């Protein structure tokens, strides 16, 4: 499946330029975090790489067929989308789509519902969960399929510290299984805790792509330097 190679990527929406042109390579096991101010194109980059946003120009190539690659990747949205089903059924849903047997789907869902601490309320509607619980469930619903590539769009935005730690622990555990992660965030602390490398986007342009340590010590982009020190990036 890897590497994922994006070449000359350009995205426009309603005639307005949103992203690119940019080139990017993602290798197996990478944990890349995308930083950048609001409107810099973080979500657009994630959605484009995942294949759910049309490109104006350029190409995204996996080293396997498009259809096969789509089955091996999952996306967690900033605002979790819950199916109007129980917590448990939300977990079994992607497995049953992939023709996993009922018994295996139930066994995995039982394991995961315990792992995310929602066992006591697994039969209530997922739409009744709190924001943090929804996000944990959305992440578990993605991870239960053991994806090779996981895209996350600010998964811990507006969550409290405890839930953020729980989500980060889930992400760390899935990277041990070899899942490659690409995630956007505004949280510089989170980037330091999780990322192997950091992409800095500004106004749709990839201004830097560096290892985490070097990004925070010697950012190649003046705007990234401003972002790290909390200055306003124009």
């Amino acid at each position: 499946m890897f590497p994922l190679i994006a070449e000359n990527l350009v995205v426009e929406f309603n005639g307005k330029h949103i992203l690119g042109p940019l080139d990017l390579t993602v290798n197996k096991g990478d944990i890349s975090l995308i930083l950048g101010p609001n409107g810099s194109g973080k979500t657009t980059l994630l959605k484009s790489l995942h294949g759910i946003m049309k490109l104006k120009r350029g190409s995204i190539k996996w080293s396997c067929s498009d259809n096969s690659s789509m089955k091996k990747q999952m996306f967690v949205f900033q605002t979790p989308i819950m199916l109007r089903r129980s917590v448990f059924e939300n977990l079994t849903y992607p497995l049953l789509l992939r023709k996993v047997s009922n018994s295996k789907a139930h066994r995995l869902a039982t394991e995961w519902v315990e792992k995310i601490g929602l066992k006591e309320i697994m039969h209530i509607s997922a739409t009744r969960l709190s924001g943090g619980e929804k996000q944990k469930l959305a992440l578990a619903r993605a991870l239960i399929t053991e994806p090779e590539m996981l895209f996350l769009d600010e998964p811990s935005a507006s969550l409290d510290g405890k839930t953020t730690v729980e989500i980060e622990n889930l992400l760390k555990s899935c990277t041990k299984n070899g899942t490659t992660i690409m995630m956007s965030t505004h949280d510089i602390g989170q980037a330091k805790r999780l990322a192997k490398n950091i992409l800095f986007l500004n106004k749709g342009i990839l201004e830097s792509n560096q290892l985490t340590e070097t990004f925070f010590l010697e950012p190649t982009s003046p705007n990234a330097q401003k972002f790290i020190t909390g200055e306003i990036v124009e």
Partner: protein
Amino acid sequence: MNDIWYGILQAFQLIYTLDQDLIDISVRSLQVTLSALVISSLFALPLAAVLAVKRFKFRRFIIALLNALMGLPPVVVGLIVYILLSRSGPFGVLDLLYTTAAMVIAQIVIITPLITSIAHQSLRELWSEYHDLLISMNTSHIQRIKTLLWDARRALLTASLAGFGRAIGEVGAIMIVGGNIDNATRVLTTAIALETSKGDFALALALGFVLILIAIALNLATHWLSKTEREGRW
């Protein structure tokens, strides 16, 4: 005024003593309407889901047409179905005119646009909620349609109940194609019209009360379903 009170008293007596004519007509009415409802729902609900999920040429036209057909005059439907089923019509060979089958066909024509339009409204809202998630999970059109139909089942039941309400209270079309034949095609509404014209207010009112009871039961069921939906009990 005395006639009305006398009629009401007699009506209660007919209901209390379970008058055979009253029972026969009520049961036939339910048989015709439920048959039309089931057959119509089998067409209307998947069609509504397809219109919500798929983008194709003439989609907007079909939606507009269905909305317009919601207000189709039943007498005109009755007339068209009559012409189609009459001996000189294209389906005359089936010998369906003046049978309950003809009444079912007329009711299907009347309620299918109504059920489709109401169901489409609900499914369109659910699709806008699920769109990103189901696209990102690489679901097929069939999987999307199945998911929407299952997760919106309460709202779809409400749509079907609206169709039931329209069909059970319909008189013009089924009078034309059914002929209001005693012990054969006489149903609640056509019987009420006949008994009123004969001046037998007692039976007409009794039939009217049964019709009202069914309508109330229907509204209570709809209210209960909407309430559970709002409370997020899926």
